């Protein structure tokens, strides 16, 4: 009954002619960073949305209080994948065992901030903006230093795997692209001309700024950036990479590995995995989520090695707050405070850092904080060669997380 749908795309084989608008972003970033090799470094931020249950992720298997507090949910010492004499990983993260053995997995325990706020939204805002004051949250910690492709000066950043921009990226000086999937950036054809001719026409029509002023000029510039982005993305992703698990996380990290491999100059990639708000029936969903996470991260590391990018990429895995020590009556856990943070990659100094005391004496039935999350942030920003002081106000110690 109806004609062509957008699923019947006509894709072009030829790349679009560029009008040579934008200088190499990698050069600019290197010029600004003082650290040799920093021009190439890439940070992949993986956000676990909803408040991951850290105690069941990095399990204090040797602490009796943990097992007593969670008769249903605790992971038995027999099942845990032991990392040290005190902690181990949930068995669903088995795929990360080889990463740990390589020394490429770092665990920082008890990460949080003073006076934990249990409002889900407020805690998210704090982690995203690196601010605990009352200022209205408009700029994210990455938004301060990030930009789009070829944004010269700012860190080229991309949101990968979904179309929304998390608060962490808000306020960026130039538009950070949200790359839901490569399909979003395919330029369709209206059927009359060949696809490459039509794209030439559109380029001519939409991106010139001469003769335009005000809003029209702004839009023309935005179009130029958009077509540039589309052209770069068209060159990658012609063949999917095998080995990534099916599912949102797998696809996002697959796309991230392709963006890194394509040398588009991206320095920060932001990925999210949702579903961690396990107030009830935690054992039905949490292990599945962790398995998807672990398998995807492991596949990502392997892909980076194959691509030759393993030495310059660090992955940060965090969640905006942890959950309470004691399980609740519905087989789940409620919002809590301190949480572990994972770091993966060759540049990472493997091992477990930070500590949580024996859970018996825990403050307010919550995992207490031993490391301020902003210390983690500034350490990573330094490594990227970005102005940490601008992104994270205040003085925070750098941590020995990287080699």
């Amino acid at each position, binding site marked *: *009954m*109806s004609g062509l749908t957008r699923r019947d795309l006509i894709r072009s084989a030829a790349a679009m002619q560029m009008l040579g608008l934008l200088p190499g972003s990698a050069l600019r970033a290197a010029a600004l960073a003082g650290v040799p090799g920093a021009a190439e470094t890439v940070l992949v931020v993986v956000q676990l949305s909803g408040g991951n249950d850290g105690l069941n992720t990095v399990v204090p298997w040797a602490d009796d209080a943990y097992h007593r507090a969670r008769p249903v949910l605790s992971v038995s010492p027999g099942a845990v994948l032991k990392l040290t004499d005190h902690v181990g990983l949930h068995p669903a993260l088995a795929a990360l065992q080889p990463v740990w053995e390589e020394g490429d997995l770092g665990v920082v325990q008890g990460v949080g901030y003073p006076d934990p706020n249990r409002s889900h939204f407020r805690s998210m805002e704090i982690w995203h903006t690196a601010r605990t004051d009352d200022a209205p949250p408009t700029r994210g910690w990455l938004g301060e230093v990030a930009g789009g492709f070829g944004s010269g000066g700012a860190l080229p950043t991309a949101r990968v795997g979904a179309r929304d921009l998390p608060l962490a990226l808000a306020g960026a000086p130039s538009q950070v692209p949200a790359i839901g999937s490569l399909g979003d950036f395919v330029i369709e054809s209206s059927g009359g001309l060949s696809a490459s001719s039509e794209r030439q026409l559109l380029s001519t029509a939409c991106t010139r700024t001469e003769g335009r002023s005000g809003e029209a000029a702004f839009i023309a510039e935005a179009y130029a950036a958009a077509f540039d982005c589309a052209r770069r993305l068209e060159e990658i992703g012609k063949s999917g990479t095998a080995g990534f698990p*099916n599912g949102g996380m797998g696809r996002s990290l697959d796309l991230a590995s392709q963006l890194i491999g394509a040398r588009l100059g991206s320095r920060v990639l932001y990925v999210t995995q949702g579903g961690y708000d396990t107030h009830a029936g935690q054992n039905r969903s949490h292990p*599945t989520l962790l398995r998807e996470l672990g398998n995807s991260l492991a596949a990502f590391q392997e892909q980076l090695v194959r691509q030759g990018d393993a030495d310059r990429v660090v992955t940060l895995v965090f969640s905006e707050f942890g959950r309470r020590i004691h399980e609740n009556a519905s087989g789940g856990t409620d919002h809590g405070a301190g949480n572990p943070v994972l770091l993966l990659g060759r540049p990472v100094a493997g091992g477990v850092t930070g500590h949580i005391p024996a859970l018996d004496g825990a403050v307010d039935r919550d995992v207490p904080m031993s490391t301020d999350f902003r210390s983690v942030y500034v350490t990573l920003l330094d490594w990227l060669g970005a102005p940490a002081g601008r992104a994270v106000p205040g003085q925070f110690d750098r941590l020995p997380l990287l080699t």
Partner: protein
Amino acid sequence: MHLTPVVLGLAFLLPAPPPAADDALSALLPEGRLAEVHVPSGKAVWDSELGRRIHTLLEDQGAFDELQDGLAALRMVTGSDPTRLIELVLGGELELGVYPTVRKNSDKPDMRNRKVLAVARTGDADGLALAMNALDAVLAASPDAKVKNGRHRKQPFLRFDDASLARVDDMLLFATDQHLLTGALDRWLDGASDVVATPFEGLASFELDTRLFRAKDIALLRTPTRKLLGKRLANPLANLLFGGLTVGEGTLHGTLTGSGEEIELDVCLPPVPDDAPRAWFPPEPATTTAMPVTPDTLAVLSLRRDLADWWRNRETYMPDGAQPALAKADQNMALIFAGQSPAEDVFGQASTEMALIVDRQRFEGGPAVPDVRLPAFCLVTPLRDPAQFTPTLSVAFQTLMGVINTDRAQNSKAPFLLDTVPHEGIGVRAAQLLAGAGSGGMGEPAAIDFNFSPAVAVVDGWALVGTSAEQVRRLVSALHAGEMTEARGVLSAHIDAERVLDALEDNRGALIAQEMLDDGLGPEEAAAEVDGLLGLVAGVHSVAGSLTRQDDCLHADFDLVLNDISP
């Protein structure tokens, strides 16, 4: 040469005589073909009921007008009439061969660029010669066509664009690849017409090489099934219905016959080996199976499957991507059936004969008549141990409705109320929506939910699990009264098009509205489109198909019975 005498001459040509059964045209087709189609008389197809319907359809769509315009233009420009060539060629005996191309740098046949060779035996060599000359003239007059004239072993042929044409005797050869054409010419010149045609009364026969389809046969079927049934339908369903179709290897051949108002398609698929998966080919029962039907039944889909085996071995039978969802389904089923094993205790209870009965709903005695009227679906199967399973089924139903009601409450939707309704001595467990918000009074549209009144019953050892209590009650009556229909073979379907038409007409308003949304039409135009569709359905009496396991082949047959639509 003056063209007027040619035109007059062509006008006196006789229509094609009946096909000669002497030498098979298939002898002319070179080796290596994937598929072959044989039509004894194109004119017979055109004159058959099917042909007439297609003719009317095209006429209504205005296709002939466009064609006439084109032909008139050609006639004016060249002074000759191309229609005669078309009638001559398509009215005669036709043979079509489909070939793969081989990609240059690999040996795998490239399915996307299939090459085609067609042979048409017109029975009238002179007429064909004249018509070909006319075609020559047309092409010569046309400035755009790049025509090349070639010779192969002294046989002339024409080439324009991708097409190659040659005339030998009363036959016209057409190919989209020159090598195919020359291959056919070789065979004619060398007299490879030693295969004698078997007399055949039908409309067409065809043959396909199933080696194409061996790999990922489920994948092949996935796509059309998904298009037919919508993307929401899980692959496991297609797998259950159509899995195992191509376990055998070899060629598939079939015939299309038409007589009066019935058109039949018979296909012989490669036979099923003895070690075929039990899930799809369980042992045949001793007696013929029959399934209950009601006066409002519009379709019956019966299956012979070993569900327990299928579920138990789902990791082998179904693709990896579906496994997490299947694991979840298994968990949910275990939950609903109070911890029993789905494979052993639930699916194991069903016999290997089962059916899905689709009925049109009347909504008599229900709380409200919904605006969009969906059909009712009921799964029926004899049980192995009815005494033990009846309470299990009852409790499982209760649990399921409890889960559904909780979910509905969270979305501010009215809940279902469970009740046991006695009907002819059988307790039918039914869940009915309470009338309330959204029941259709006071200008509020009746929610589509009123199409559902889930129900279960066990009667005479049969389990009935359906979406409508009204239908389940009628099926209880049908089983008591012995109103059954035969279920043939491994898979069979029967669709009563007249009932389908009733169900569609129930929803004429909604169909018109949907057409307006999809095509931006106004109410009157959308109504015309919908009525056109209904008219098409009205022309059909029934559609039936079945898949039967025989010694030498897996036999599939389709039967389309048309209604008399002559004015």
